[in-house]
């Protein structure tokens, strides 16, 4: 695919009024400012990219543009007319549709019924005419050349087919402006190619797209103009052809609040190899081979869909790998077994603390000691006193703000919840600490504490793996492995530049453009 520059606004619809224009949008969630005077303007017929790092405000803007949330300030207009009231779902659906990463399809119903849910074809007696419903669904999908059997249950659709079906459904409501929220994140290269072909096709028929992606390469391949958000603000909007890769990465990165570097002790070159991963292949096809020495901090960086989380989960037993071995201090870990990984001395901070990290209704003490029942009691009984003592240590070590070990985790803030997860990972004095996106959704102060732990752990002679796309998480690593589409594509020594790392994560090589 060559990155042919399209003339901006050169689509078949030659109107000047923007398809959507959002001006001076402000949105607050509690104390955090999600959008601060940000805006966007999308011209008819163009494919417009929206990029920004995590937390830049992209998803908040999408929910405001699709009428799921009201902005605290500012105005949204479609075709020059003010947006309909939030309650009027039909009016919104005629103007804009969004294909989210999360499916809005009902898996138990057929594709045909999903397309015409609550607007089934009916005979004069009020009964649904399944035959004409199926015919209409077939016509609709054929009109947009989506090749899917409409009689199959939606649960059997692939991610790609599901996206096509959702796009076709959006178009059938009359919307000609479609937001695609990271549509390529779950697709393989061939699927991405088909999706892009489909998007170009629809664009030729006057459909306007707002395309959200973490992969800059895709934006150069597909889009006409690009808008960059950073830290809840609009940074720049420019034709893709006029914005160099360096300029785009710089706009996304900006000047980050840099973390104070803890007194780094250089890694002694004779430290023994502690962790050795050989030809690990995940069920999704991502591959990794690596070694880490005692006292070494290794980062694994990559965007969504790069496979970094999958390889880490396969390493610690959360997912069963398709192949390969993981050896920790001479002991080969049993594939797909968390208890074996724990016994070998693996401490884990999982990706999603709400799903895998915590039992929110239980106390801090119970959560922290969950992985180490034998340390807080004997013969299967648990001693509350010892458990609370252990938890009090954790609370003090990690400066968790809580009244005591009996406080339910659900009452803590996000940062303090994450500290509890970290405390649990540290409870068995791990030889290998694996942190998957350890500072996601965490405030700056907690971030410092959490990353400070890494330094303590490495001093004790353990190895640490940091799996993240946050630059701050990776700054203290001795080296960073960069993954892209399931493969390690590069390795960067300590002291890398932000632009180089971001570019490598997006699959762009800045030095060979």
């Amino acid at each position, binding site marked *: 695919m060559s990155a042919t520059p399209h003339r901006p606004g050169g689509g078949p619809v030659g109107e000047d009024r923007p398809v959507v224009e959002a001006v001076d949008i402000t949105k607050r969630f509690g104390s955090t400012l999600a959008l601060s005077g940000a805006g966007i303007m999308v011209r008819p017929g163009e494919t417009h990219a929206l990029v920004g790092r995590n937390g830049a405000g992209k998803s908040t803007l999408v929910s405001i543009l699709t009428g799921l949330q009201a902005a605290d300030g500012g105005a949204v207009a479609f075709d020059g007319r003010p947006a309909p009231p939030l309650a009027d779902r039909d009016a919104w659906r005629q103007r804009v549709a969004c294909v989210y990463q999360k499916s*809005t399809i009902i*898996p*138990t119903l057929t594709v045909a019924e999903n397309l015409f*849910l609550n607007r089934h074809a009916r005979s004069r007696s009020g009964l649904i005419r399944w035959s004409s419903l199926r015919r209409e669904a077939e016509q609709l999908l054929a009109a947009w050349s989506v090749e899917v059997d409409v009689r199959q249950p939606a649960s059997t659709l692939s991610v790609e087919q599901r996206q096509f079906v959702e796009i076709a459904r959006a178009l059938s409501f*009359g919307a000609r402006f479609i937001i695609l929220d990271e549509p390529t994140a779950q697709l393989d290269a061939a699927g991405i190619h*088909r999706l892009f072909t489909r998007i170009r096709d629809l664009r030729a028929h006057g459909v306007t797209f707002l395309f959200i992606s973490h992969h800059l390469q895709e934006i150069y391949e597909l889009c006409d103009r690009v808008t960059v958000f950073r830290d809840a603000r609009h940074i720049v909007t420019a034709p893709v052809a006029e914005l160099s890769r360096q300029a785009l990465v710089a706009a996304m990165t900006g000047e980050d609040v840099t973390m104070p570097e803890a007194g780094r002790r250089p890694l002694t070159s004779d430290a023994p190899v502690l962790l050795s991963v050989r030809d690990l292949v995940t069920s999704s096809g991502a591959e990794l081979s690596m070694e880490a020495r005692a006292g070494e901090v290794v980062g694994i960086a990559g965007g969504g869909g790069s496979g970094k989380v999958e390889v880490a989960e396969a390493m610690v037993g959360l997912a069963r790998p398709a192949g390969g071995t993981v050896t920790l201090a001479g002991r080969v870990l049993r594939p797909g077994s968390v208890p074996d990984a724990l016994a070998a001395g693996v401490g884990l901070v999982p990706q999603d603390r709400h799903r895998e990290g915590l039992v929110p209704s239980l106390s801090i003490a119970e959560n922290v000691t969950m992985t180490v029942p034998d340390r807080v009691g004997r013969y299967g009984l648990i001693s509350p006193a010892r458990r609370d003592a252990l938890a009090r240590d954790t609370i003090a070590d990690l400066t968790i703000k809580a009244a005591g070990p009996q406080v339910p985790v659900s009452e803590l803030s996000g940062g303090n919840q994450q500290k509890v997860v970290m405390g649990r990972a540290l409870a068995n004095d791990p030889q290998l600490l694996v942190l998957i996106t350890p500072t996601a959704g965490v405030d700056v102060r907690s971030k410092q504490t959490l990353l400070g732990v890494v330094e303590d752990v490495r001093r004790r002679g353990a190895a640490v793996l940091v799996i993240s796309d946050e630059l701050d998480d990776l700054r203290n690593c001795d080296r960073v492995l960069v993954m892209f589409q399931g493969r390690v594509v590069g390795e960067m020594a300590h002291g890398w530049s932000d632009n180089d790392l971001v570019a490598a994560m997006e699959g762009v090589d800045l030095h060979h453009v």
Partner: protein
Amino acid sequence: MSETLSTGKASAPVPPPTRPPSRHLALARLRDLALVPAIIAVAIVGWIISPVFLSTDNIVNVLQSMSEIAILVLAQTIVLITGKMDLSLESTFGLAPGIAAWLVIDPALTRGLGLGLLPDAWAVPVVLLVGALVGAFNGLLIVRFGLNGFIVTLGMLIILRGLLTGISGGQTFFALPGSMTYLGSTSWFGIPASIWVSLLLFAVGIVVLGHTRAGRALYAIGGNADAARAAGIRTDRVLWIALIVASVLAALAGLLISGRLAAVPAAQGDGAIFQVFAAAVIGGVSLNGGKGSVFGAFTGVLLLFMIINVLTLAGVPAQWTNFLNGAVILVALVVSRITGGKAQT
């Protein structure tokens, strides 16, 4: 929507996405009939054990004995498809005719059991009204206040059973008015009316759940409530109506059995809910919502009652009935798992 926008040329560069084999589709559509082989097998076994099994009299007997429970299964199926469950149906089954009898029957005739407040003609409307009120109250707690449906209806099951025991003093209402006994005891075209009523209700259920927007809304809500709301379905209202309809059906089923027995015992329906759940799940209705059909539920009840009938004909002693009822449920589940080929959830 497609008059100016059809794109024939576009398909050329797009390799067709892989389709699941069409065999899978055919199987999916046959899932409704999954129990038919099992029903035939039980019929053959029954005929071998006792040739009486396939006689008209015995078939009518099976259909009549299952007609009231079958209506409860229909009611539960409606609720299960929306992803909720209603345990209180078994108590509504006893309470609705109980209250009607209490208000209508003459205390002089029944040693002070009833109140005799309302004329006989009110009996049937009161039965249905009690059902509707119970359903509306369930809906108030589950839909409006967002309480857990399982616990709400468990509480209602106990309350309603206690209410019936309270008003009847634990005794059996008898000397019911003719309007209450008519449906349960009369015959149309030589077949008991309760069979006609239950078959008719199932036919209506098949049409409504399979062929109306309201019926499909039940599936959408059970499958993915957020997506249903996004499609413009008023999920709260639909849930509420489903709960009311289910309770009214339970009241009607109670009326049928009271008519058949010409009495309303205080324990009417006690424990029936387990059989109801079993029949629905055997018939392929998912406890997680969104899956299952009215026809499947019907085959579930039919299979359950045929097996019970075969055991009776085989001369199994009455003391073993409960043991066998439980065993039948498990065996029927296993049979439907084997013939249906898909894990029950």
